[in-house]
């Protein structure tokens, strides 16, 4: 740890770390306020494929968290940044609610394909259109590759199977932009103007939050809330920098030991 530079930024996962569904993790609001009083930048990072930043913001503000829209960085933000860097015009296979985060982008005559969780767009015609673009050289960008997700009526296919199918059809490899990809974390940090060795990530997902952040050169703190299951800390190598009961404990550790 001696080689690490002074801590400048804290990246915080949302669902499972600050709140579980419609309930805040006890003490999380005050802990966030205390963190903000320290000289450290804060960013909220999450994998989402169907909720725009405004939706996320409204939910968190409704739970009395103090944050602003520009502090949220999602897998959709990461996709947009990638498209803008390469000046691509995307065909967006994303949920209607996520489209808002792509407002203002040129989508005419597309030369890139973005796949999120979009059951309404995974029909044969639309996938054929996406396939033809990819075969003509358009890059395939995946918000993430989850196999399936749970909804009220049971399990349902996630974006991963469709991304995998398109990869097979066009004999290509998708660029995945969400957590745990290294570029996701470095992009989020670049907006704060700091490097991975000046940052720590707090999250409830050992692989996607903690493992991904540590692979990118950050410290990772695993919290035992949300999707955490006993033994998760031993599922990644190297293990988490720290595992603690919940977000307020993680903040306490940062304030006491890292600043």
């Amino acid at each position, binding site marked *: 740890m001696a080689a690490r530079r002074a801590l400048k930024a804290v990246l915080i996962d949302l669902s499972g770390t600050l709140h579980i569904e419609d309930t805040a993790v006890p003490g999380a609001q005050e802990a966030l306020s205390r963190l903000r009083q320290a000289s450290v930048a804060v960013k909220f990072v999450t994998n989402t494929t169907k909720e725009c930043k405004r939706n996320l913001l409204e939910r968190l503000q409704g739970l009395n968290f103090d944050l602003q829209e520009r502090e949220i960085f999602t897998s959709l933000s990461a996709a947009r940044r990638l498209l803008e860097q390469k000046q691509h015009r995307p065909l967006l296979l994303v949920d209607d609610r996520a489209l808002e985060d792509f407002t203002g982008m040129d989508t005419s005559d597309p030369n890139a394909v973005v796949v999120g969780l979009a059951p309404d767009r*995974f029909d*044969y015609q639309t*996938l054929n259109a996406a396939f033809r673009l990819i075969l003509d050289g358009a890059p395939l960008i995946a918000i993430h590759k989850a*196999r399936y997700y749970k909804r009220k009526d049971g399990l349902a*296919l996630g974006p991963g*199977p469709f991304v995998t*199918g398109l990869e*097979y*059809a066009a004999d290509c490899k998708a660029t995945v932009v969400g957590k745990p990809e290294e570029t996701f974390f470095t992009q989020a940090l670049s907006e704060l103007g700091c490097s991975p060795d000046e940052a720590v990530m707090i999250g409830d997902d050992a692989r996607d939050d903690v493992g991904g952040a540590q692979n990118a050169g950050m410290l990772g703190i695993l919290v035992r809330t949300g999707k955490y299951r006993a033994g998760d800390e031993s599922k990644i190598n190297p293990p988490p920098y720290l595992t603690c009961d919940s977000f307020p404990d993680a903040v306490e550790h940062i304030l006491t030991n890292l600043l």
Partner: protein
Amino acid sequence: MADSSWTDSAKSLKGVILDMCGVLYDSGEGGGTPIAGSVEAVKKLKASDLQLRFCTNETQATREKFVAKLQRMGFDICVSEVFSPAPAAVAILKERGLRPHLLVYDGVVPEFDSVDKTNPNCVVIGDAADKFSYQNLNEAFRVLIGLEKPVLFSLGKGRYYKETDGLKLDVGVYMKALEYACDVEAEVIGKPSSVFFQSVLNDMGIQPQEALMIGDDLVNDVGGAQHCKMKGVQVRTGKYRPSDERHPTVTADGTVDNLAQAVDMILSRRGC
């Protein structure tokens, strides 16, 4: 001029297997059109002492309807000479006592009439085209994920095919999607599966070294046949692309302009 070294074995040849779409005819509006010279080429093969079978991954219609379409185009062909994945799948399902959930094109459903489909314990997917909706794929996924050990059969595993209005995703894409979703490996029925080619050879009662496969799909027709120790020749019709002749893993024993040229080369070499 076509390289003719592949015809060296023509004298010891006892049977020929032909792919159909892209070799006999091009698909498209109104069922498609015969490829120039192919009707005559099939006639010549039938008049020779060679055995002839047809082998297709077509899964959008029953064999009866499919063969009737080819007969209308002028081909001398009958149902018993045609091998397609659906009847092969039915045989496997019955042999293993499996009850399928079907995700296939409406036109091929009657092939499965004799199979018990209640309380499914496996999934069969074919080229379902427009029926590959999220909803339908999700239903197949739920059957699989609900099984203790998911069993998935795929009628072929093609990536895409060409229709008059452009390239279309083939069954292999959806097979890969379900494989990834359920973390299973599908059992492929049809080309390029060795079991499928072997069933055609068994029907002719000949050894693989005595048989030649002619197709337009380098990997599934030619590569699949070669994997069974048959010779494989590719035609420059159908889905043929010039890059096939520089493929990294599959090299055809011969490449010819079309079926008519292949048949003429074989028969003249045999001294017919």
